[in-house]
C-alpha cells in the first residue's frame, strides 16, 4: 500500500513540468552567484565563490526564500484529492492511513530533495561558465556539497515540508498553507529585528530558534578566517546541533500530528473541508430544484456601436480583465511577498556601507530597493508575459475569444498594458518600501522627486523593455516554455557579450549605461 502511493506520487511529480521549473528556480540563484561575481552572498574578497562557506550561505538562503517551493511541493498531494473531488473515490476504498499519508509525504520528500539538489547543480554549472572568475573558483567538491546539503537542505525540507504537509492535511486549504509560510517569515523577521536592535554578540538563543537557519549560519561563521571559510564544513555540535534538533523535532511532531489527527473518512473530510466548494455544490443543487423562470425568451434588444470610442472601451475592458487575471493568482502573490521580504530586509541595511553605518540617503536606498526587487520584477514580467499570451489557449477560451469582433492590435496592446500596469504598481510598492525603510531607520529626508525619477523614468522603462521582449518571443516562438528558456538565456547572454568585449549599449537590449548618482556629485 505504501509503495503504491509512494510510486504514484513520484510518477505524477516527475511527469509534471512544474517539478523541473522548481528545479531550475533552485539552480538559478547559486548559478548566478558563481557566474556573476558580485551577485552572490560572499561578496568580493579571497573566499572562493564555491567554498564551503559560500555553499552554506547559498543553500540556507535558497531554502529560506524557496520555502514557497517547499509549500508548493508539500501542499498539493493532499489538497489534490479535495480540489479534484477525488476524495470521495479514494476514501471509499479500503486504503491504509499509513500508506496514504506517508506514501504521499515520502513522494513529496523525494521530489523536494530532487528540486533543491538544483543548488549543487547550479553551483557546479556556474563554475563552468567561461566568463566566471576562475581565480575565485575552487574545484567542485561534490562530497562537501552533499554534506552541507544534507545538514541544511534536507533538514529544512523535512521540517518545512512536514509542517506544510500537516497544515494542508488538517485544513485542506492551500491559502492557509501559504499563510503559514508567511507567518514563519514574519517570525524570522521579528527575530532578526530583535537581534539587531539588541546589538549583542551573544546570539546562541536567537540562532537556536531561527527557523530558516540564516541567523544561525551567520553567527556561526562570523569569526571564520578566509582559510576557514574555504575549508570548514559545520559539524553537528553546539548551536548548530541544537538548532537542527529543534527544527527536526518540530517537523517530526508536525508529521505525527498529521497522522494522528487526519480523519480517514469521506464523511468527516467532506464536512470539514473548506466551505467554498461545498457552497458551490449547494448552489448547484438548489439551482437544479428551481423551476425554469420563464420559458419563452424575451431578450432586450441592444445597439452595437463600433467606432473609435468602442475600440478604446474594448482596450480598457480587455486590459482590466487581463490585469485582474494576473493579480488574482497565488504564484503572483507568492513572488511579490518574497520580493517584499527581500526589499525590506535589504532596505533595512541600506545604510550599512561595508560595516560603516551611514544615513540611508535616497540614492543609496534607490540603489538597494531597485537592485533587490529587479530580479523579481523581471521574473514576474517574463512569467506573466507567457501567461497572457497563452491565457486563452490555456483556459480553452480561445475559440470564443478569436471570434470576437476585436482587432488584433487591441488584443496585443491590452496584453502589454496589463503587464505594464502590474509592473508599475509593483515598482510603486518598491518605492514605498524604500521610503518606509528610510523612516524605520529614523531618516526622514525623503527625496520623492529623486525616487520618482529613478523608479519611473529609469527602472520601469527597463522592466517594460523586458516585458516587450518576452511578449515578442512568446508570440514568435509559439511555445511557452521554450520562450521562457530563451528569455532566461537572453539574461545569461549579456554577461557573455560583456566578456567578449561587446559593451556598446546600442547593441545590448534593455541595458543602460552604469551610473552612480550620489548626493555629492548629483
Amino acid at each position, binding site marked *: 500500500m505504501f509503495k503504491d502511493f509512494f510510486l504514484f506520487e513520484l510518477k505524477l511529480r516527475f511527469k509534471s513540468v512544474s517539478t523541473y521549473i522548481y528545479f531550475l528556480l533552485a539552480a538559478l540563484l547559486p548559478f548566478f552567484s558563481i557566474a556573476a561575481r558580485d551577485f552572490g552572498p560572499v561578496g568580493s574578497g579571497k573566499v572562493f565563490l564555491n567554498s564551503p562557506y559560500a555553499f552554506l550561505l547559498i543553500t540556507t538562503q535558497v531554502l529560506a526564500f524557496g520555502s514557497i517551493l517547499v509549500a508548493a511541493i508539500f501542499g498539493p498531494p493532499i489538497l489534490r484529492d479535495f480540489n479534484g473531488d477525488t476524495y470521495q473515490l479514494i476514501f471509499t476504498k479500503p486504503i491504509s492511513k499509513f500508506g496514504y499519508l506517508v506514501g504521499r509525504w515520502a513522494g513529496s520528500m523525494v521530489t523536494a530533495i530532487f528540486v533543491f539538489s538544483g543548488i549543487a547543480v547550479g553551483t557546479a554549472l556556474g563554475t563552468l561558465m567561461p566568463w566566471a572568475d576562475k581565480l575565485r573558483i575552487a574545484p567542485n567538491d561534490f562530497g562537501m556539497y552533499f554534506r552541507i546539503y544534507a545538514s541544511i537542505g534536507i533538514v529544512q525540507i523535512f521540517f518545512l515540508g512536514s509542517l506544510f504537509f500537516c497544515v494542508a492535511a488538517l485544513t485542506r486549504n492551500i491559502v492557509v498553507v501559504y499563510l503559514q509560510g508567511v507567518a514563519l517569515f514574519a517570525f524570522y523577521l521579528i527575530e532578526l529585528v530583535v537581534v539587531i536592535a539588541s546589538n549583542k554578540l551573544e546570539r546562541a538563543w536567537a540562532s537556536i530558534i531561527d527557523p530558516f537557519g540564516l541567523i544561525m549560519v551567520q553567527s556561526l561563521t562570523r569569526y571564520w578566517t578566509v582559510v576557514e571559510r574555504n575549508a570548514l564544513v559545520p559539524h553537528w555540535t553546539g548551536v548548530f546541533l541544537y538548532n537542527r534538533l529543534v527544527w527536526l523535532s518540530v517537523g517530526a511532531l508536525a508529521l505525527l500530528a498529521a497522522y494522528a489527527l487526519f480523519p480517514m473518512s469521506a464523511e468527516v473530510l467532506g464536512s470539514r473541508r473548506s466551505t*467554498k*466548494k461545498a457552497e*458551490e*455544490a449547494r*448552489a*448547484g443543487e*438548489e*439551482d*437544479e430544484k*428551481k423551476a*425554469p*423562470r*420563464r*420559458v*419563452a*425568451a*424575451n*431578450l*432586450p*434588444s*441592444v*445597439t*452595437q*456601436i*463600433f467606432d473609435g*470610442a*468602442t475600440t478604446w*472601451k*474594448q482596450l480598457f*475592458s*480587455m486590459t*482590466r*480583465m487581463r490585469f*485582474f*487575471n494576473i493579480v*488574482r*493568482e497565488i504564484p503572483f502573490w507568492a513572488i511579490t511577498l518574497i520580493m517584499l521580504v527581500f526589499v525590506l530586509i535589504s532596505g533595512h541595511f541600506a545604510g550599512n556601507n561595508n560595516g560603516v553605518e551611514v544615513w540611508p540617503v535616497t540614492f543609496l536606498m534607490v540603489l538597494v530597493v531597485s537592485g533587490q526587487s529587479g530580479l523579481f520584477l523581471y521574473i514576474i514580467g517574463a512569467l506573466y508575459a507567457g501567461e497572457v499570451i497563452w*491565457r486563452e489557449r490555456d*483556459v*480553452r*477560451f480561445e*475559440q*470564443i475569444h*478569436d*471570434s*470576437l*469582433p*476585436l*482587432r488584433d492590435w487591441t488584443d496585443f496592446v491590452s496584453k502589454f498594458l496589463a503587464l505594464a500596469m502590474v509592473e508599475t504598481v509593483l515598482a510603486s510598492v518598491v518605492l514605498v518600501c524604500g521610503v518606509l525603510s528610510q523612516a524605520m531607520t529614523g531618516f526622514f529626508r525623503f527625496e520623492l522627486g529623486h525616487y520618482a525619477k529613478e523608479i519611473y523614468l529609469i527602472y520601469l522603462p527597463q522592466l517594460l523593455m523586458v516585458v516587450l521582449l518576452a511578449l515578442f518571443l512568446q508570440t514568435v516562438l509559439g511555445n511557452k516554455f521554450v520562450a521562457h528558456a530563451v528569455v532566461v538565456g537572453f539574461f545569461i547572454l549579456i554577461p557573455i557579450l560583456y566578456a567578449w568585449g561587446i559593451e556598446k549599449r546600442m547593441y545590448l537590449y534593455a541595458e543602460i549605461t552604469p551610473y552612480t548618482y550620489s548626493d555629492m556629485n548629483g
Partner: protein
Amino acid sequence: MLSIRNLAKTYSGGVRALRGVSLDIPPGMFGLIGPNGAGKSTFMKILATLLDPDTGTATLDGLDLITNKDETRRLLGYLPQEFGVYPKMSAIDMLNHLAVMKGITKSGERKEIVEGLLQQTNLWDVRKKALGGYSGGMKQRFGIAQALLANPKLIIVDEPTAGLDPAERNRFLNLLSSIGRNVVVILSTHIVADVRELCSRMAIISSGELILEGVPTQAIEAVKGRVWSKVVPTDGEREAIEKAYPMISMHRVGGLNEVRVYSETPLSDGFLPVEADLEDVYFRELSRHRPN
C-alpha cells in the same frame, strides 16, 4: 439567408474534413447531424471565422463571411463544442466584458442584456461566483449566455446540449428556438431527437460530404411505411438478416435483437411495419453513403 457554396477544407495533416459542401440555410433553426469526425465542427468553425476554407464561399444576406471576418464577428453568436473559462472571473463580470467586446457600449443596455441572459440561463444566483467553481452544466449555460449577447444574426452552436441534464436541455432548446425564429441558427448535435423537436430544416453530413438536406418531417414522410422491424434472439439470425436486407439499425431490447430494415415492398418472414422516425432516416442515409 445563408448561402454556402462548395466549401472544402483539407487539414495540413492530409485529413479531408470537408469535400465541397453547398447549402442554403434560411432563418430559423437548422440542425446539423452526423457521426464523430464527419466534419461538423470544421464546417461550423469556418462559418465562425476561426478557419479559412481552401475553396468555397459563404454569404449571409450579401455579406461574405470568409473575407469580412470583422463584420461577421459583429453579428455572430458562437458556442464552441469545447471551451473553458477564466477561472477567477465571475459570470457577470465576464459577460459584461464580452458585451463590451461585442460593441454594446451603452451601459444601460449592457446591464439589461447581461442581467436578462443571466436570468434566462438560470445563473442569476451564482452570477458573482468565480467561473472556475461552476459545474459542467452551469458552465455550458454560461457558454449559451455569451453566445446570445448582442442579438446575433447568425448563431452557431456546436453540440450545445452535451453535458446538460434533461431539464436544462429543454430549457435551453426552448430559449434557442424562441430566439431563432428570425435569425439563422445552426445547431450541430449527436442527438437526433434535438433536431426532430426543434429544427425546421436539417442536414446530415458524413465524411465531409452533405448526404441529405431538407425538412425533417418530409424526410420522415419519405421513408414512411418502408421501415420494418423484426425481433430475433441470436446474433447468427441477425447477421443473416444483415446480409439479406438493407439494414438500418439494431437495438437490444430485453436481451433480444431488434433489427430494423428498409424495404419499399412489404416484407413477410416475421417482419412487422413500424412507425418511422428521424433516427431511421439518419441511419439509413449513413448506411447508404457508407464509403466502401
